[in-house]
């Protein structure tokens, strides 16, 4: 039985339909990263789960029971807000303790628990401060402590690392998964950063157009995106898109990219004749010497060294641009000018041009959505 079970959730604000029939299932102890572009309703979903908003339609199940009609204070959830939402007139200690004072717990026990979680998050030395006196990082950890101290079995984290500086964000990205796993809670973690989603989530739920487009492990989301919308959200730089129409040439499905004839595996036979968009991940394009068949003639226009990788910008016949990325900066300066690119055919993605859905080559199982 799923810990969080959302079915067909609909929510509109005035005339704006934000969630349109959203369904999601999170198992006990799982960390699911809720990912999507801004304004798509991720925060709205969290608030519906917490009971701050009421849905227009659909059901919300928590721990196997219908939660609608249950007010926020009875849902037994821990939540950390994006803007911290700390109580300005209380110390950090009292902020964290507020999650426990609603229960009949004696003061000493509350203080012990607060101290324990504060030590865990390394804010025990600022517990006596008011929120005004805390740095952003300390505020974020206080908000997190408040969500964690009650040891809730369901945790909702609304982009808690957003307002935190880059260095701390990196540190927390390493610490958080351990922290959350140790707590054993079921976690729904909202983020707009795909790298964060891939780093933290057991599964990633991609929110597009008011519903979950795909909910899968990071690896499968990356390698087997269910549609072009999902594919475009992952990868830096974003994947290259080329419009193609596969033809059968010598019994082999073939597409033309920048004038070059690329032969696709036989499992793509069913795609012949249709209109598609070919998705090429930057890291699947390699510079090669020579003029082997299946390589594309390109012009190297610019190189951007980014320490751990370099991004290369090419133009093809017809003016289209391609981005490739390769690890390291290779030391030797790159020669601008005509070059040739080879593709990794096993990472190639084909999307139907009308529906956006990925074409699934014969023999493969479609991804879970």
């Amino acid at each position, binding site marked *: 039985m799923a810990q969080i079970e959302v079915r067909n959730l609909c929510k509109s604000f005035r005339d704006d339909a934000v969630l349109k029939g959203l369904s999601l299932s999170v198992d006990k102890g799982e960390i699911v990263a809720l990912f999507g572009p801004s304004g798509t309703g991720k925060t709205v979903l969290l*608030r519906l789960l*917490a*009971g*701050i908003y009421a849905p227009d339609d659909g059901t919300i199940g928590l721990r196997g029971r219908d939660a609608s009609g249950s*007010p*926020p*204070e009875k*849902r037994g*959830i*821990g*939540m950390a*807000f994006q*803007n911290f*939402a*700390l*109580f*300005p*007139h209380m110390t950090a200690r009292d902020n964290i303790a*507020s*999650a426990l*004072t*609603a*229960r009949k717990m004696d003061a000493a026990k509350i203080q012990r628990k607060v101290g324990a979680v504060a030590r865990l998050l390394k804010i025990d030395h600022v517990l006596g401060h008011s929120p005004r006196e805390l740095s952003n990082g300390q505020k974020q950890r206080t908000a997190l402590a*408040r969500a964690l101290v*009650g040891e809730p079995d369901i945790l909702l984290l609304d982009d808690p690392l957003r307002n935190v500086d880059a260095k701390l964000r990196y540190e927390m990205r390493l610490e958080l998964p351990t922290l959350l796993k140790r707590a054993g809670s079921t976690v729904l973690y909202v983020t707009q950063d795909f790298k964060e989603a891939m780093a933290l989530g057991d599964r990633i739920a991609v929110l597009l157009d008011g519903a979950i487009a795909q909910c899968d492990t990071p690896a499968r989301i990356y390698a087997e995106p269910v549609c072009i919308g999902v594919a475009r959200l992952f990868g830096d730089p974003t994947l290259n898109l080329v419009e193609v129409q596969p033809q059968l040439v010598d019994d082999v499905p073939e597409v033309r990219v920048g004038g070059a004839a690329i032969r696709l595996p036989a499992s793509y036979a069913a795609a012949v004749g249709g209109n598609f968009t070919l998705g090429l991940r930057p890291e699947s394009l390699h510079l090669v010497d020579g003029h082997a068949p299946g390589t594309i003639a390109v012009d190297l226009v610019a190189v951007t060294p980014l320490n751990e990788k370099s991004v290369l910008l090419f133009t093809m016949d017809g003016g289209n641009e391609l981005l490739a990325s390769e690890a390291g900066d290779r030391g030797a300066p790159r020669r601008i000018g005509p070059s040739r690119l080879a593709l990794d055919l096993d990472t190639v993605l084909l999307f139907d041009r009308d529906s956006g859905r990925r074409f699934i080559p014969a023999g493969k199982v479609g991804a879970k959505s």
Partner: protein
Amino acid sequence: MGRISFIERVLRGLLLTLIVIFFLFPIFWILLMSFQTNEQILRIPPSLTFIPTLDNYKALISGHLVTSAGTLDIAFMRNLGNSVLLSTCSVVLALILGVPAAYAFARFKFRMSEDIAFTLLSFRFAPPLLVLLPLSLFFESLGLVDTYVGLIWVYQLIALPLILWIVRGYFEDISSDIENAYRIAGHSWARTFFKIAVPLAGPGIAAAGLLSFIFCWNNFVFALVLASADKQPVTVGALAFVTASGIQYGQVAAAIVLSVTPTLLLALYAQRWLVEGLSLGAVKG
């Protein structure tokens, strides 16, 4: 600012001094008068140097006036007590009724809220007699004629709109996520209201309360129309006092001083919030 010439600076200083004298002189003069005997007051030309006396205040406080025509009993202290009672109770009641309503208006956007809010606001600008005169006829049939309760209820018409409009703004300025966080932490709506919303809106509530007190205290026409003789506050009482015959002017001055001192002191204490209160929450000081 070095472009201001010396002459200009002198002129500005002069103008400002004249203005300050104009606005503060009457208060100062009446204060002076309250410490003078009748003879000193009637002396022409009026003099700034005299030996002050506390007789006027003593007479007022004790309630006995010795005039040339004999002894009079004046219950001005009773007026003062009425003012304190009416203003305090009205403000307390208005806070109890108005703060939750202000919260409802701030947090829940429901149809009736705007209608109520605007009716109360527009009443602020309608002639009070329009409502008071019919009310005075109703009071008899309602049995409210010689009561404090009737007056306190009617004084809500002064205090409640002010409290609603000022406190509503303060509640609106509190991020609702703070309240949501407290509720998710396990607390009921009522606890959230008392432990989070009200403390955070505290300054606004205090400002609204202080200002309502000043306006209730200074009110004249409500009490004139509806208050029975022994329940009149100082505003009406002082007028009656003046028109009574044989009153010594020093005592009148002392009565005036006693009538205005509470509000003047409160105003000095609450000065930070006066702009906001006077503009009904439109302008932050």
